[in-house]
């Protein structure tokens, strides 16, 4: 780090009179956040030693506070110390609300609080805490800060300036807090383009799963991992591409919590391929069966990525056009993809993602032609499309496919997927089912369609359970 941080801070804080938070400093100098906090502290101390009041600081205090909750009406009383201090709503207060039946009149509840305070209010803020676990400098500004809200601008700037950095790579450098239970497929595209891909990928987490799932399915269909891997990879690539976007979008997808750990991932894959329903939720359900696959599929990601790239080429506009043209048959980049497309088209006339839209169309066409194995693949494609579609909103699919009956808004995606797989299996598109089952069974090294069917059916059922809750309609 060296002295360049002093120089950098002098330029930005003193000369440019900007508001610099420890996060902006860490991103700008590529240092760990904790180091940035120390730098801020050091600079603040030195500048004020030279000239008192030269630099103003805000502090972040974390600790526990005691909140007295009146029992009289169960009303959760808020105690705001300073109105200039921002207080994050702690998770506990809500629990303190309903306690009218407790015997005690008032209850002091320890609330974990994170507070940002200006330096002039620091001692006052600290006094309000019952116990303090940490204090550090949050930001520096010259000449004081009138509206503490303006600190939000720092974060917005970071988002914009450093959008190209992938959080998975740089988290170590910056010290971003990580959740070990969160899994994200490593296949990712450039974050900025993810915007377009986002709609395509309903589930970000699914990205990894997708390739895996796709591959699985593909392999199942063909009963040959190798031959199917190609189409799968094609699909997978599209899926992974979607996934990154999904990942981003679904970062905080509520459905993640419903996904059974890995199942989410597989879901996205299945979804994208199965039905164009963009609903991310839908994806969750089918995922259940694929959780196992995800782990194993990671290896396939690379292959999938390659394939996906080709498919991802389409822009959203293209996809939409493709959707329209779904009914019509369009060329697909890969022959295997065609198969998938056909299935997909059948399943979701409307929701198919662009990249998949093409495959879907073909799928439709090829549905008939293909034998069981082929169909399976197409199914996969369908699902993908669904995912890639417009995200969770999932357009109403004007699919002419018989499978569309399952559409239930949010459930559409899932249901259709499941259904498609299921139906395809029985109706000429065994692929989806196969794929699903294949995915699962691949884990078990069994490529029976039966399994798929079961899985498909099971998944559908699951989806219905949860999806109905989140159904848009």
């Amino acid at each position, binding site marked *: 780090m060296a002295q360049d941080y002093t120089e950098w801070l002098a330029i930005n804080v003193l000369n440019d009179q900007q508001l610099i938070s420890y996060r902006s400093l860490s991103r700008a100098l590529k240092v760990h956040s904790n180091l940035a906090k120390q730098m801020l502290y050091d600079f603040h101390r030195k500048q004020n030693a030279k000239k008192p009041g030269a630099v103003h600081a805000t502090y972040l205090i974390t600790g526990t506070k005691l909140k007295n909750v009146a029992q009289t009406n169960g009303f959760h009383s808020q105690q705001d110390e300073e*109105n200039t201090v921002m207080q994050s709503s702690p998770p506990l207060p809500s629990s303190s609300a309903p306690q009218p039946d407790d015997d005690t009149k008032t209850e002091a509840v320890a609330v974990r609080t994170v507070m940002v305070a200006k330096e002039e209010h620091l001692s006052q803020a600290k006094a309000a805490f019952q116990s303090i676990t940490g204090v550090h400098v949050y930001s520096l500004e010259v*000449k004081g800060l009138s*509206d503490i*809200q303006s600190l939000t601008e720092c974060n917005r700037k970071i988002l914009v300036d450093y959008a190209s950095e992938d959080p998975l790579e740089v988290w170590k450098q910056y010290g971003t807090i990580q959740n070990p239970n969160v899994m994200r497929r490593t296949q990712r595209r450039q974050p900025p383009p993810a915007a377009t891909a986002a709609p395509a990928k309903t589930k970000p987490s699914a990205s990894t799963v997708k390739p895996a799932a796709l591959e699985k399915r593909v392999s199942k269909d063909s009963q040959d991992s190798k031959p199917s891997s190609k189409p799968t990879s094609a699909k997978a690539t599209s899926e992974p591409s979607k996934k990154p976007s999904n990942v981003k979008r679904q970062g905080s997808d509520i459905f993640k919590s419903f996904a059974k750990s890995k199942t989410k991932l597989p879901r996205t894959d299945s979804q994208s391929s199965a039905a164009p329903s963009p609903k991310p939720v839908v994806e969750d359900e089918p995922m259940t069966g694929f959780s196992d696959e995800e782990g194993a599929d990671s290896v396939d990601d690379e292959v999938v990525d390659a394939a996906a790239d080709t498919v991802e080429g389409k822009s959203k506009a293209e996809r939409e056009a493709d959707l329209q043209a779904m009914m019509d048959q369009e060329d697909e980049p890969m022959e295997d993809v065609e198969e998938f497309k056909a299935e997909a088209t059948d399943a979701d006339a409307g929701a198919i993602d662009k990249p998949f839209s093409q495959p879907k169309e073909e799928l439709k066409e090829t549905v008939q032609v293909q034998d069981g194995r082929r169909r399976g693949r197409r199914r996969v494609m369908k699902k993908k499309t669904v995912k890639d579609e417009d995200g969770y909103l999932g357009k109403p699919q004007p699919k002419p496919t018989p499978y569309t009956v399952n559409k239930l808004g949010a459930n559409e995606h899932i249901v259709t997927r499941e259904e498609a797989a299921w139906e395809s299996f029985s109706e000429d598109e065994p692929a989806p089912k196969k794929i699903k089952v294949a995915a699962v069974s691949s884990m078990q090294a069994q490529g029976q369609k039966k399994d798929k069917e079961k899985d498909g059916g099971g998944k559908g059922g699951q989806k219905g359970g949860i999806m109905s809750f989140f159904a848009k309609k």
Partner: protein
Amino acid sequence: MANDAPTFRSLVTHFTDFLTVAIHTILYERNIYPRTSFLSARKYNFAVRQSRHPKVCEWINDAMAAVETEILKGTVERVAVVVYNQALKPTERYLFDLSRFPIVGAADADVPLERKAADGTTVSVLPVVDIEEQFRATMSKLANCGTVLRPPPVDGTFTVAIELKSDGQAPVSHPQPWMPVEAATRQGATELQSRRTHPLRAVVAGDLMFESWIEETPAAD
């Protein structure tokens, strides 16, 4: 604002929207109204303060509508938000110089504008992204102006004034929204010298160009 073809009217509307937010911010910063009567809002992707009092909002909106009418006539040179102290003497002025606005006749207010660069390529007349960014920067500076100015007057009040171009027609129509004031409020040289000026920002976004600064009258007494 027109996505395809910005008109002069849309340009002016952008400006008056910005001015509305600026006035709310000034009211918050200078404690004209209690800070608790403001809620946090978001404008131009930036956290701003907005007054909750309906009368205040109504007054500001009316003032902006009147300003817009005048700008469309092309007679306005500057818009000023003046803060008074309790004795009704101005303590500070927030000025927005509009002399660089495009001069468009009243009848052409809705005509789509287009600008061509020297080499014939079309240049954007109203780049929305640029505008947002510049407005955001101005708001950010305005929000922090409280730290550079003197403490605000207690129980002060404010108003909006426009300074017309020398060849402009004063707005003295029947429902008179404006009150004519003598321009001789500018005192002698000494006072002018002791008046402190703090630049805010010169916004240049396509054809929307204006400058803004803060003038502080010398400390009274």
